[in-house]
């Protein structure tokens, strides 16, 4: 299990960094989707099946769609984007920083013998039961959030009555 996780973590990190550093928005979105998918793998390996499914479907699916539609709505030429934002140039420091921080963290952890350990035995519980029975507040929140999403689409994307 650990091996898969290590490999997935490496991919996850790489995809994330690529998403950040890529000078093309489209590529960024795709890298992000890939990162989501990798995350889904990790979640699955850890035993969070439901979460993994949702992650893969929603994050790497829905959000990518939203992105791509937003990107396509903004009709700027690719070269122009690069010239205007020059993200690649501005982001070069990121990998260096990440490596430094990563090494530092590992050294610190090793030096002080710090590591995370499981605090409790795994409890067998049904996700659905928990979600529906004990997370009512969250569900209300989710409903309302989705409601707001609808209203937001209604309010923000409609083209008529533009000015107050």
């Amino acid at each position, binding site marked *: 299990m*650990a091996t898969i*996780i290590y490999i997935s*973590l490496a991919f996850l*990190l790489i995809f*994330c960094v690529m998403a*950040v550093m890529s000078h093309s*928005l489209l590529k*960024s*979105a795709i890298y*992000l989707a890939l990162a*989501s998918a990798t*995350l889904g793998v*990790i*979640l699955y390996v*850890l035993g*969070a099946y*439901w*979460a993994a499914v*949702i*992650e893969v479907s*929603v*994050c790497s699916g*829905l959000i990518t769609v*939203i*992105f791509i539609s937003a*990107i396509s709505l*903004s009709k700027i030429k690719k070269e122009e984007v690069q010239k*205007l*934002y020059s*993200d690649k140039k*501005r*982001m070069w*420091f990121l990998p260096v*920083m990440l490596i430094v*921080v*990563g090494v530092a*963290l*590992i050294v610190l952890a*090793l030096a002080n013998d710090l*590591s*995370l*350990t*499981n605090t*409790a035995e*795994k*409890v067998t*519980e*049904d*996700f659905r039961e*928990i*979600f529906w029975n004990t*997370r009512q507040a*969250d569900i209300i*929140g*989710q409903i309302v*959030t*989705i409601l*707001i999403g609808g209203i*937001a689409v209604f309010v*923000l994307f409609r083209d008529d009555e533009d000015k107050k």
Partner: protein
Amino acid sequence: MLNFQTIMLFVGFLMIIAGCYCMIRTYHMLKIIIGIEVAMKAVTMFLILAGYMNGHMGLAQAYVITAIVIEVIVAVVFAGVTIGLYKKYGNMDIRNLTELKG
């Protein structure tokens, strides 16, 4: 000895750093939400990791699902606002947004 939980934690940290770095350094509005998403991925991972460690994986999944829903809605709203701004300014440069200052 480093176990995979610790490594996951560290990778999460690095992802959050990457996300924040992206948010601060980029000029493109959509890129900012990518930064946010990257950070959110890390947070999702943390939640599940926590669930794995304390044994309440079901609860952690409930958290994650809720968080993802919110994440999506935020992305939608963000995209809406961004497109509104694009209509006003003709591009998505965050540097335009200095009308409110001081």
